[in-house]
């Protein structure tokens, strides 16, 4: 099975990297801005929550395929992803425009 059970360690490391991006990098949250960032080729990595509606998920994946951008399926729902971003609202998908000090782009797409 492909990453059936994401280990606690890798999950925490994604959260850590995401926290670093929130602090030092540029990102946008939300479906509309994610598509915008893909269209103007600013997005470098897309993260999608696991309870994202399947049509929206495939649409984002298709755009990312056209833009040759990696997509990471976050192991958690939109509530968890919002918490991981340090926000008090739900985040279904987010796009990382500039990772700042984080190495999320270099290390994540290997297992996305």
């Amino acid at each position, binding site marked *: 099975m492909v990453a059936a059970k994401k280990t606690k360690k890798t999950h925490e490391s994604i959260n850590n990297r995401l926290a670093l991006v929130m602090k030092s990098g540029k990102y946008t949250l939300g479906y509309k801005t994610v598509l915008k960032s893909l269209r103007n*080729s600013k997005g470098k990595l897309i993260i999608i929550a696991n309870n994202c509606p399947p049509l929206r998920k495939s649409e984002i994946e298709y755009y990312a395929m*056209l*833009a040759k951008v990696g997509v990471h399926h976050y192991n958690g729902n939109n509530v968890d992803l919002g918490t991981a971003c340090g926000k008090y609202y739900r985040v279904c998908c987010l796009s990382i425009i500039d990772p700042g000090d984080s190495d999320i782009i270099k290390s994540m797409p290997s297992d996305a």
Partner: protein
Amino acid sequence: MVKFLKPNKAVILLQGRFAGRKAVIVRSFDDGSRDRPYGHCLVAGISKYPAKVIRKDSSKKTAKKSRVKAFAKMVNYSHVMPTRYTLDVDLKDVVTADALQSRDKKETTGKEIKKRFEERFKTGKNRWFFSKLRF
């Protein structure tokens, strides 16, 4: 990180009168313009698809069925679904921003696009583009 809304890209219009129709990007304005402060593009699309031609159709019927009605339109990027297909038909000289200014210019542009689409359809290439999207 690759720009994909480029000329010759086949797209599907999502909103407006031509929702569900396939079109090809002729010119893209990523940073918008003064009248349209958003990313948009000039597309040329099919308003009426050619009908299915069968073997026992007479040549007159085939000619009638292979007709394509075309349109040209400025459309917002968010009202467009890009696809992985491309259509390289040279429309840059005929579809321009000022061709959409007046009704008679629009008509002549439409007729010219129609001609070029029809000759491309008759060669049998780009079959996906000329088939109706079922939904």
